[in-house]
């Protein structure tokens, strides 16, 4: 029995070392398409690498945007600048409340926003958040804040990516990485925003399931974010950026989720309020630049109207 236990532990130790070596070789050599459970990608379509580097330097913003691609493609800091509001966008691809919580814990203290606009897309409350977590792991310098959330996923993809990320950090690859500002039709705009040149609506080829059951852990993360904001005396507004009416209506719990969000304070659902036509979207859920202009102008007006933003608390300049 003793021999068996000794051999077993020796094999486990050998296997762990071998696993890490295989993973590093695999992650370095295998084409991205075939890296099934190891999704390490610096940069990526959401410009998370550049955004996080900028977030490290940004301080004392008036408005901080949080949320998914609806946030970083839907809230243009340049439009808020017209109203003399300094804004920063901390959105990331498919960001669910769990990842928002990680970013809030890591950046709120540094960025010190006066007001937070939290884009809440109820569909993402049914998502496990793994893809977004991988995006953050791949692009954050020191993802220590991520470990508790990452370990709790019990997901091989997350664990493998964490191991590979440790290797990338060890060899200092992230320090030398430079993400281009332009990728295809997309351009990174200072302030965390991604502007697109796409201006024609193209529906997605595959039907998506918008009605995954809402996950308790996402609701808990959402409520923890609200508590954190309240604790820090940071005012906030919950916003649902517009999506195409087809996409909006495909989700069956709009009423229920609207009611839920309203319980936490000011909440605006712009799919309901604006009902924008498909021509203002380039896909099923992202606005063209023209669409962003319309939506952001409406949002700013609404924020002023409700006195969520006012001269006194934001020290606004002449343009208001």
């Amino acid at each position, binding site marked *: 029995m003793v021999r*068996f236990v000794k051999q077993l532990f020796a094999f486990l130790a*050998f*296997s762990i070392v071998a696993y890490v070596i295989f993973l590093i070789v695999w992650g370095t050599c295998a084409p991205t*398409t*075939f890296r099934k459970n190891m999704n390490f990608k610096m940069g990526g379509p959401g410009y998370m690498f550049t955004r996080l580097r900028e977030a490290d330097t940004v301080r004392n913003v008036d408005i901080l945007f949080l949320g998914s691609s609806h946030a970083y493609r839907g809230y243009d800091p340049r439009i808020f600048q017209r109203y003399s509001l300094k804004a920063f966008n901390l959105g990331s691809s498919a960001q669910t409340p769990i990842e928002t919580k990680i970013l809030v814990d890591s950046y709120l203290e540094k960025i010190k926003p006066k007001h937070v606009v939290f884009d809440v897309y109820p569909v993402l409350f049914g998502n496990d958040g793994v893809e977004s977590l991988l995006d953050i792991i791949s692009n954050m310098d020191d993802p220590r804040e991520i470990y508790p959330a990452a370990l709790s996923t019990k*997901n*091989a993809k997350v664990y*493998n990516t964490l191991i590979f990320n440790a290797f990338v950090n060890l060899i200092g690859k992230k320090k030398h990485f430079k993400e281009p500002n332009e990728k295809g039709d997309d351009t990174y705009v200072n302030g965390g925003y991604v502007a697109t040149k796409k201006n024609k609506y193209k529906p997605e080829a595959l039907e998506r399931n918008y009605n995954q059951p809402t996950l308790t852990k996402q609701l808990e993360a959402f409520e923890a974010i609200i508590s954190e904001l309240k604790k820090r005396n940071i005012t906030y507004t919950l916003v649902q950026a517009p999506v195409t009416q087809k996409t909006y209506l495909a989700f069956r719990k709009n009423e229920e989720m609207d009611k839920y969000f309203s319980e936490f304070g000011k909440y605006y659902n712009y799919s309901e309020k604006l009902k924008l036509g498909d021509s203002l979207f380039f896909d099923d859920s992202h606005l063209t630049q023209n669409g962003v202009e319309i939506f952001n102008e409406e949002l700013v007006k609404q924020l002023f109207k409700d006195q969520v933003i006012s001269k006194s608390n934001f020290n606004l300049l002449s343009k208001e």
Partner: protein
Amino acid sequence: MLFNSLNFAFFLPIVFIFYWTLQNKKLAYQNILLLLASYYFYGCWDWRFLFLLAFSTFLDFYTGLKIYHSSDKAKRKFWLILSVGINLGFLGLFKYYNFFADSFASLVHQFGLNADHPTLRIILPVGISFYTFHGMSYVFDIYNRKIKPTTNWVDYSLFVSFFPLLVAGPIERATHLLPQVEQKRTFDYSKLTDGLRQILWGLFKKMVIADNCAEYADIIFNNSDSYSASTLVLGALFFTFQIYCDFSGYSDIALGTARLFGFELLQNFKFPYFSRDIAEFWRRWHVSLSSWFKDYLYIPLGGSKGGLFKQIRNTCIIFLVSGFWHGANWTFVVWGFLNAIYIIPSIVFRTNRQHLEIIAQGRLFPSIKELAQMTLTFSLTVLAWIFFRAETVGHAFDYLSGIFSMSLFTNPFISNPEFIRSILVIALLIPFMIIEWLGRENKYAIETSFLNMPRPVRWAFYSLLVFSIGVFMQTKESAFIYFQF
């Protein structure tokens, strides 16, 4: 609790440690521990069905004793019929009630009549087909005076509900397993490492090969009307490997787990895709079920005695019942019937026992003739699996008619760019089949393949299997196909 779950990864070592710390105590303590662990394992699915399992166990234990102690033939028959009747009654109720009710309603509807029937919301208790067959074989063997019944309730319960085989077999026989339950098991280092090796190979088959094949097989079968013929062939091939690696992977884990506790279970798969004819395939596929049907249905029906017609009739009955055992759907019945059709020529020409040894025994490569035979048998099997996987018989025929079209000669990866990732699955299948081929003379492919190599090489290979599981597994747990049967 699934074998490929984190829960099982905690459950197994805990039971293992307690079990072997009891080895110097009474044998009964080890058996009680395994019985409790088995009931806990089963209860993790649905504790309510523990009562059904316990009742079924009690029924066969009691009727076994009654049959044995009755000298009167009529009484013996009464107890046998009672046991078999109740067992099949439960199986029929839980597994087939809705099927028969729906089929009857459809039939009546054909004649313009309306037959409303109460469709019950019946949950299929996991493993009912397996533990019912365990118990029935015990009662049959006592009735046929092959064995004496045990008077130890714990031993008998453990024989029926031993957790490695409880939910998907192998379907054990009392003659094989019960003596092992009654005998003292000793800690054997080589047996244990062999068990771990087989578990690892089973996990690889299930989590790397089967689950990845399933991803694409599901997409293609679920949208079969929108794909080209070559893609449909690809889908059928993916399912062919999925079902084999899923079920044989499960069996490997079950056998390996049992070996960790000192038990040897029946070998359930003997490299069936290397068969040279269908008869050989069925001697190598789900062996414990095939032999169960042979012993308790085919032979009582007369077997091969009584002329060619009777033999063909009996064979057809076996395959139809076997198909129906797999599930309450006409697709399984047609699958069984198709296999019966395949096997009839070998019965007529008396070639059904031609290939008893494994192909190319002692040789590295098969002969051209063997290769041709193997390819033909494999193709026929793939064709039959289409019925097994399809939602309905109509769906299966549509799938088949989709295959036999001009688009058979198109490249499935060009017409479906989303399948480009499935090349990875094919890339995994190639080394897998090579390892299976090289290890085909063993009980499982890697049983002895690497034993003569230096330890670092051997461990590096096992670590590569662990790595493959970590990197290629599906990130959501997937149940084994045969749990539903």
